[in-house]
């Protein structure tokens, strides 16, 4: 009897210690636990919908950035209509590959498909649409003790130079000139970037490429680039973690991430000369400062609207114009129509910016152009 008590004592004690540790540091662990708003939604099993109201179910795959919103949408839409939509947040690149291969009914991407990708998709299944669903902003976050969120002002030009490592300290004259009242330290800037390929990086490098020709030729615009600088963090959590821990660090994360974790951000000068904090309103405004083409394949970074925040972008659902299954096609267009209208209200709570009315109008036309055997699947 005594022996068996002895045998169990250690594991029990260990469990107890772990439990106490968790209880003790519940405050500090919340940041880590809340760390992944972009975490892939739990993979739902692809069994056909058993609800009597509908037998059609849709499968989609792609970007992780809008996944929390899409999950919310598809959940609400299921309650509303009984249509089951499975979304796998596998990343934009994988989403594009899957929609090209035709293994999913729609793809989702934060980046515009490259010419090469579009050719391949069109060869397989005909013309493909980029339908904007929502937009998001990217906050430039930093770690300088004693300087509160929104106190530092920088320009796109300075940001490029920091990421090119030509500005290396916080008290560089080019930064202090923009911030006359601030006491910026003489410490080297630790530049943090995303190590994984991501739509966030695509939007960020798109902005830097628009600002600077040097960036465009030296580094370029892609979901993953050859960074001149310092530390790579895995996901938003990795970047935020590195910035929060490393003194004098600078990094970029999705606005939702910075907001939910109270990470200080800089004010960024837009084209009109105003210093803007990253915000949902500023993101929606950004779509009003650029000419939106009919195919909506447009990056809205560096918008000329005076109230626009400069680093933001659309995220798109990719769907083929010519649907091959009438029932699925009808379900898809109805769902998309719902998403760009009724669905927009769910964005704010999750830190996604609503589409501007101009963008909605363009998206409507795109959805209306989706056909089955030459016949439009939806009419006004």
């Amino acid at each position, binding site marked *: 009897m005594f022996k068996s008590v002895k045998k169990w004592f250690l594991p029990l004690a260990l469990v107890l210690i772990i439990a106490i540790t968790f209880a003790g540091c519940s405050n500090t662990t919340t940041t880590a636990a809340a760390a992944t708003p972009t975490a892939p939604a739990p993979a739902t099993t692809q069994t056909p919908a058993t609800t009597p109201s509908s037998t059609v179910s849709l499968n989609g795959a792609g970007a992780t950035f809008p996944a929390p919103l899409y999950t919310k949408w598809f959940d609400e839409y299921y309650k509303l209509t009984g249509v089951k939509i499975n979304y796998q947040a596998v990343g934009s690149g994988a989403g594009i590959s899957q929609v090209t291969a035709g293994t999913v009914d729609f793809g989702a991407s934060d980046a515009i498909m490259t010419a090469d990708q579009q050719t391949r998709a069109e060869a397989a299944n005909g013309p493909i649409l980029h339908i904007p669903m929502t937009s998001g902003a990217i906050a430039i976050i930093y770690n300088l003790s004693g300087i509160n969120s929104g106190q530092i002002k920088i320009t796109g030009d300075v940001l490029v130079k920091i990421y090119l490592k030509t500005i290396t300290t916080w008290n560089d004259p080019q930064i202090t000139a923009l911030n006359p009242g601030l006491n910026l330290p003489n410490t080297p800037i*630790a530049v943090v970037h995303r190590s994984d390929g991501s739509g966030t990086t695509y939007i960020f490098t798109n902005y830097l490429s628009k600002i600077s020709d040097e960036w465009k030729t030296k580094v370029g615009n*892609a979901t*993953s680039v050859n960074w001149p600088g310092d530390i790579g963090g895995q996901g938003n959590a990795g970047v935020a973690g590195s910035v929060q821990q490393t003194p004098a660090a600078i990094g970029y994360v999705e606005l939702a991430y910075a907001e939910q974790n109270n990470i200080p951000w800089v004010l960024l000068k837009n084209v009109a000369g105003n210093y803007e904090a990253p915000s949902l309103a500023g993101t929606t405004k950004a779509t009003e400062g650029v000419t939106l083409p009919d195919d909506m394949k447009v990056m809205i970074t560096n918008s000329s609207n005076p109230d626009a925040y400069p680093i933001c972008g659309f995220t798109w659902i990719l769907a083929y114009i010519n649907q091959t299954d009438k029932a699925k096609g009808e379900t898809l267009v109805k769902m998309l129509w719902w998403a760009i209208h009724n669905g927009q209200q769910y964005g704010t709570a999750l830190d996604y910016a609503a589409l501007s009315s101009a963008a909605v109008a363009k998206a409507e036309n795109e959805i209306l152009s989706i056909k089955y055997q030459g016949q439009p699947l939806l009419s006004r």
Partner: protein
Amino acid sequence: MKVAVPEKIPAGRAAGYTTRRHRRFGDPIFSNLTLVFALVVVGLLIGMVIVLNIDAFPAIRKFGLNFISSVSWNAVTEEFGALPAIFGTLASSAIALVIAIPISLGAAIFLTEIAPSWIRGPASFLIEMLAAIPSVIIGLWGLFVMVPFVRSPIESWLGTHLGFLPLFQGPPFGVGFLAAGMILSIMVIPIITAMSRDVIRAVPDSQREAMLALGATRWEMIRRVTLPYCRSGLIGAVILGLGRALGETMAVTMVIGNSYAISASLFSPGATIASKIASEFSEATSGVYIGSLVELALVLFAVTLLVNVIARLLVWRMTSVKEAKE
């Protein structure tokens, strides 16, 4: 056969089971079944290599052997090379072993030769528990707890006092080769400890007693008899740990800093083959890009194989030298 059967079976307990009928039908089925399983394992390996080669083909065709020696990794211009990742993989694993080997061997010797028996059980249990922690948890702990500690005091102290060495130059970011090596060492210590403990325990007591009878101290006994006796086993334990370190992905990705560069400094961020693949695979789009990542996997395959072969040769040479001496 007819003669051999009754001779081999001890009278009593086994006789009832091993009737001739059982042998005739059971044995061939069993041996063929195990053969099939063995072939499945071998086939899996071969199949994997073939598939990797097919998927890597766009990159192999474009870069050829330059892939191994090139240092660039640029998805925009589609220039890919593996050298920094190979360097990072070997460097982080080497750091891990430098830290892990003394600790593991020390712990194993303590557990087998020195510790009182009431400590052995619990301590072994705890060490094995360490091996059971999923690597993503170790990685999170590494990022939020270990990395700040590595930055200060470890790196800042090394930087101020030993900064004249190229090993300890550069800004102390916390993340980097040192952090990666440390996190890997935490993951390989339980493996090496548990295995070397078993190996040391297997040394016959007669060997120890003979040495002690000659008047040796405990330290002399351990150094002259125990360790040399099980040397090849210990090397095997280290190799097993090295295998884990070379392929470890998640925890390393979280703390290595993911910068694609070769640097002499332990402080500088780097990348390993596994971390590069894990980071970029989901968003890789073009054929050459994906091909390059798959080719990285092939390179990791080759590096692991090479390391294992070298280690086997080492074990083989050491044991043959020992036998020759005897």
